[in-house]
């Protein structure tokens, strides 16, 4: 591996990391400890590896680490944890919208990227923005109702 150093911001923290020229952002993030980023298919089909790069969701498996140079990356670790969950994490847990959980970090980041742009998305906007996150367990209904309830509880009006 021909390593080269890049600077980037991960979850609000400026980092300097060595990356391989052909290394994916998915591989880099997991290698340096952000294991909330999941490897589902490694080919852009499932969304388990979703992270937010410069305000937009990307499949980390289809992104080269060097493409994040100078950029801002957000992973699920930025949002919250078991003791201190983010409202999105709490909403999904409360609704029983999480089964095996493998899709959930990506699902939540896609939802966050939309909520960061629009306080009260319509059902159509939710579908469009979450269309790259597959869930094999839940059938999506509970995920959708959790998101609707969260927006309603925050005073959002569709």
């Amino acid at each position: 591996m021909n390593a080269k150093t890049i600077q980037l911001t991960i979850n609000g923290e400026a980092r300097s990391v060595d990356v391989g020229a052909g290394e994916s952002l998915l591989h880099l993030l997991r290698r340096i400890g952000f294991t909330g980023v999941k490897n589902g298919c490694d080919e852009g089909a499932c969304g388990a590896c979703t992270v937010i790069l410069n305000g937009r969701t990307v499949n980390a498996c289809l992104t080269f680490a060097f493409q994040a140079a100078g950029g801002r990356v957000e992973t699920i670790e930025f949002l919250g944890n078991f003791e201190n969950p983010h409202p999105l994490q709490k909403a999904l847990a409360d609704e029983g919208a999480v089964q095996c959980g493998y899709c959930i970090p990506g699902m939540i980041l896609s939802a966050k990227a939309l909520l960061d742009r629009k306080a009260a998305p319509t059902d159509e906007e939710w579908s469009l923005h979450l269309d790259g996150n597959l869930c094999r367990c839940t059938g999506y209904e509970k995920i959708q109702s959790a998101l609707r309830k969260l927006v309603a509880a925050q005073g959002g009006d569709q």
Partner: protein
Amino acid sequence: MSVFKDFVLPRSVDEARAALKQLGAEGMPVAGGTALSFLRHKEPKVAVDLSRAGLSGIAAENGGFEIGAMTSITALREFAAPGWVLDRVAHRFVTQQIRNQSTLGGNITRVFAWCDFPVALLALDASITIASDTPRAVDADEFFAGQPVRLLKAGELVRSIHVPAVRAGEGFGYRKHTRVEADFSQATAAARVKVEKGVITGARVALGASIPMPVRLPAVEQALVGRKGAIHVVNEAVALIGTRTWRSVAGFSQDYIRHLASVAVADAITDAWKAAVEGRA
């Protein structure tokens, strides 16, 4: 992922071009980077990342739109202006993540069978500007007459794409068939139709995904022009798609792919004709 042995992060088009010129066959432009896993190289290459080269953005210009090669599919979807129709193509493009990552330039420069934008650009009569020591514009017919990368010498890049606005009296139709919403396209069709006093006076119709490379359908276009718009006219024209080398796709018979293609073309023409008549673009 295809393997790169090194990468450079140029800060302008000139820097990117200089790097590519120096690297020759070793260099490879990277736009969104999403297609690199589909490409196999014998020798690892040096990635030249175009994301800082200032090539993204859409401007209304010369009766149409000048789109920077690095403009993301999401930006195409979110843009709105009279005569702008690429949002419809962008809306049906894979997933949110891939719409965010992929660029228009990346989708059209190395064409895979399933690529949607070449089909739309053929129907819309777009032209493609190449950044070079001798900059030039190439019309869509010539650009897509073979694998477009064939036109680029070391150090040359696709800089922008000009798409004429769809005007009053014209309509655009676009159809795409996939097994599930975010799947690779199995049939993509686009049509731009002009109607005057109920008569079709101009038509550009293109098909992709069900055949190895996107093409215009001149026999279909000719069968439409001069006729009064009607469903049976569309069906007669679509019959002229003729025999093609249909792509083999796992789980689809060739006959079904042929069927999907003719349905997509008929629907795209019908949408375009009706939009023209109803003044919707």
